[in-house]
C-alpha cells in the first residue's frame, strides 16, 4: 500500500503539515467547509454510518451507530476526543497529533457538526504536554482562520474546541472515568447505563471517540463512502495505524488496511523488518496490554477485528507487541500485571485486591526466586475470582496476561518452582511493600 493511500497518517511526509497554511494547501479543512456549507449534520452521520468506520479506541464499535444513540432534541451535547493513550504498546495518537494536528482538529470539528455539539474537549494524558502545545497552537490557527468560533463560515454553527490535560492515570481513558476526570474529580468509572450518549459529561448527551477514529472522518467526507470501503475488509473497512513495538527491527506506526496478516506487519522490510537478530517470535500481544496473547503459530492471522477474535485474542487498540524467546512468560505477566495494579483506580475489590495479590505472588516467584506449586494454584484462583467480577474493563483486562501466561507456558511456571525448590523448607517472605 503506497503512501498516497494513507487515510489517517496522510501527508505525514510533507514538511510543516502541522502548519495551518500547509495543511490547507493540501486540501485540509476542505471536507469541513464542504460539510458546513453543503451538507446537514444528519447527512454526515449517515455517511459515517455507511462508511462502516469502527472505533479505534479498543472496542471497535461502529462510530455512526454510536452517534445515532443520541436522544433527539436534547441539547447541549458534547463531543469528547479520547487522547489518554496510556495502554502499554499504544502510541499512534501521539504521532498523529505531533505530526498532523490539523487533521485531528478537522475531524473533531466535523464530528461536532455532525452530532450538533457546540463544545468539544480533547482529553490528553498529562504526559502529552508538548503535544497539547502543538494542538493548542493549531486550534488557535483554526480560530484565526474562522473555522472555529461563532457563526463559522457564515453559517449558524458555533464551535469551541478545548484541550484538557489529564495528570497521569490510565483509567481516565475509560470513557466514564474520563468524564469524571474532566468534571474535576478522581478518575473512577461510572455505572453504565446510563450510557454517555444519553447522560455523559455534566449529565448531558455526550459522544466520545478515539483520536484515530476522528482523524478518519475528514477523508470519509472528502472522498466518499465507496472509496473508504474499498480499503480493508467488509466488516472492518478502512485502515488501522498499527503501533508495532518490541523485538522487531523497525518498531513504529504502520498504517495498513485491515486484514493484513500479522506476518506481513512483523516481517515485511517496509514495516517491522523481521525480528531483531533473527530470533524466534515467542509472544505476540496484538491489541495492547488488555489482549490475550498469541504465539508464532498465529502469524498468519489477518489483522481485523473478527479474525483476531477468532484466534482467541482481540485487535483492541491495534498495538502489536512482539517479544522473542529471551523473555520469560511469567516475567511478562508480572510486568503487565504490575501495570494494571499501578493503574487500578481502587473503586472495586476484585480489581484493587486481585491485581495487588497477582503482583505480590508473581514478584516473589519471578523476582525473588521463591515459587511453590501452591503458588500456581493461587494465581489461577486469583484471576478466576477477578474475571467477570470487576466494575470496569481495566480489572477484566488484568486477567489476560496471567491467564495467557499460565495457559500458553505452564512449564515455565513449573520450572520456577523447580529452580526454587532447594530454597524451600524455610520461611518464604512475602515482600512487604509495593
Amino acid at each position: 500500500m503506497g503512501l498516497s493511500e494513507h487515510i489517517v497518517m496522510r501527508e505525514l511526509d510533507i514538511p510543516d503539515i502541522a502548519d495551518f497554511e500547509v495543511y490547507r494547501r493540501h486540501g485540509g479543512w476542505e471536507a469541513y467547509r464542504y460539510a458546513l456549507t453543503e451538507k446537514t449534520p444528519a447527512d454526515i452521520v449517515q455517511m459515517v454510518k455507511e462508511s462502516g468506520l469502527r472505533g479505534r479506541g479498543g472496542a471497535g464499535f461502529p462510530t455512526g451507530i454510536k452517534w445515532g444513540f443520541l436522544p433527539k432534541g436534547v441539547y447541549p451535547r458534547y463531543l469528547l476526543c479520547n487522547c489518554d493513550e496510556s495502554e502499554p504498546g499504544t502510541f499512534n495518537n501521539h504521532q498523529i497529533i505531533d505530526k498532523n494536528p490539523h487533521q485531528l482538529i478537522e475531524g473533531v470539528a466535523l464530528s461536532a457538526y455532525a452530532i450538533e455539539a457546540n463544545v468539544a474537549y480533547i482529553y490528553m494524558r498529562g504526559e502529552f504536554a508538548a503535544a497539547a502545545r502543538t494542538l493548542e497552537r493549531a486550534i488557535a490557527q483554526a480560530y484565526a482562520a474562522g473555522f472555529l468560533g461563532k457563526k463559522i463560515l457564515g453559517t449558524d454553527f458555533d464551535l469551541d474546541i478545548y484541550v484538557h490535560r489529564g495528570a497521569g492515570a490510565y483509567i481516565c481513558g475509560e470513557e466514564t472515568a474520563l468524564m469524571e476526570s474532566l468534571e474535576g474529580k478522581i478518575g473512577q468509572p461510572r455505572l453504565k447505563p446510563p450510557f454517555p450518549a444519553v447522560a455523559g459529561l455534566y449529565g448531558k448527551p455526550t459522544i466520545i471517540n478515539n483520536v484515530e477514529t476522528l482523524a478518519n472522518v475528514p477523508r470519509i467526507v472528502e472522498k466518499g463512502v465507496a472509496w473508504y470501503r474499498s480499503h480493508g475488509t467488509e466488516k472492518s473497512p478502512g485502515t488501522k495505524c498499527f503501533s508495532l513495538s518490541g523485538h522487531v527491527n523497525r518498531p513504529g506506526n504502520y498504517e495498513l488496511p485491515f486484514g493484513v496478516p500479522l506476518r506481513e506487519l512483523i516481517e515485511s522490510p517496509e514495516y517491522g523488518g523481521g525480528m531483531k537478530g533473527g530470533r524466534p517470535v515467542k509472544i505476540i500481544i496484538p491489541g495492547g496490554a488488555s489482549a490475550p496473547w498469541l504465539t508464532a503459530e498465529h502469524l498468519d492471522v489477518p489483522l481485523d477485528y473478527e479474525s483476531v477474535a477468532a484466534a482467541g485474542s482481540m485487535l483492541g487498540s491495534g498495538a502489536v507487541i512482539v517479544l522473542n524467546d529471551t523473555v520469560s512468560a511469567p516475567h511478562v505477566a508480572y510486568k503487565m500485571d504490575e501495570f494494571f495494579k499501578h493503574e487500578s483506580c481502587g473503586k472495586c475489590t476484585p480489581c484493587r485486591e486481585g491485581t495487588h495479590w497477582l503482583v505480590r505472588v508473581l514478584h516473589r516467584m519471578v523476582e525473588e526466586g521463591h515459587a511453590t506449586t501452591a503458588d500456581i494454584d493461587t494465581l489461577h484462583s486469583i484471576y478466576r475470582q477477578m474475571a467477570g467480577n470487576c466494575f470496569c474493563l481495566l480489572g477484566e483486562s488484568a486477567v489476560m496476561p496471567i491467564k495467557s501466561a499460565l495457559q500458553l507456558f505452564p512449564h515455565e511456571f513449573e520450572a520456577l518452582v523447580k529452580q526454587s525448590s532447594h530454597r524451600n523448607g524455610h520461611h518464604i517472605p512475602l515482600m512487604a511493600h509495593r
Partner: protein
Amino acid sequence: MTLLEIHQAEIEAIIARYASKRSAVLPLLYLAQDTYGYLTDDAIREVAAILALPATDVFEVVGFYTLFYNRPVGTWVLQVCDDVPCCYCGAEELIAALKQTLGISEDETTSDGMFTLQRVKCLAACDRAPVLQANLDYVYDVTPDRVQMLLNDLRARAAEARKRGVSGRFAEDYEFTRDGRLVQIERFSPYRPREFVIEPPAAPASPPSSVAPEADAGLDRSDTRKASPL
C-alpha cells in the same frame, strides 16, 4: 502574592472553558505546581478556595493523579518508562545507569536538588525505547552511553533558566537546537504562567562543551523515527 493575584487572567480564562467551575481543578493544580515547584498544602487549599470546593476534594485529586507532587521534587523530574516492551528494550539498563551516575535510587532527589528519578508506566513512545521524560519533555532512544550527555544538557538548560530569573521548574522552556544553540521555546499552553514567558535570548548562549552537536546527532527529541515511512 497569591496564585489568583499572579495569574488572574489565565485562571479566569481556564474557568471559562467549562460549564462547571470544578472542571478547572486539574489545570489550576498544574498552574500551582509550576508556580510553587510542588503542591504544598497551602497551594492545594488555595486552589480549593478559588474554585469554592471543599479542600478535601482537592487533596483527594492530588493524591489520585501521579503527575501532581505533594513533596518537593528536583528541578528536573526524570520519568523513565519501565513497562512492557521498554523493559525488554533497554529500560532497566538505562535506569541502572541513571542511578549510578546520579547516586540516587528511584523516588529520590539528588542533594543539589537538580534531579528526581522515577519509574513510570508506558509513555506512549514504545517504538523509541528506552525512553524517558524530563519534566514531560520526551527524550527518545536514551541508551546508557548517552546518560552523561543528557544530564549535562539538562543542567545547562536549568542554569540558563535561573540566569533569567526564572524558577528552575521552567527549565524545560529552554532547549538545544540541532546546531547546539540554547533557545527558549514557544510556550503555548494555557496551564503555564505567562508571566514567566520572557524574551528569547538576543545572542545565542553557547552550548556546553560536552554537547557535541555534529559528532553525535545529539539527544533525540524529534517526534518520529527517521526510518519510519510515515
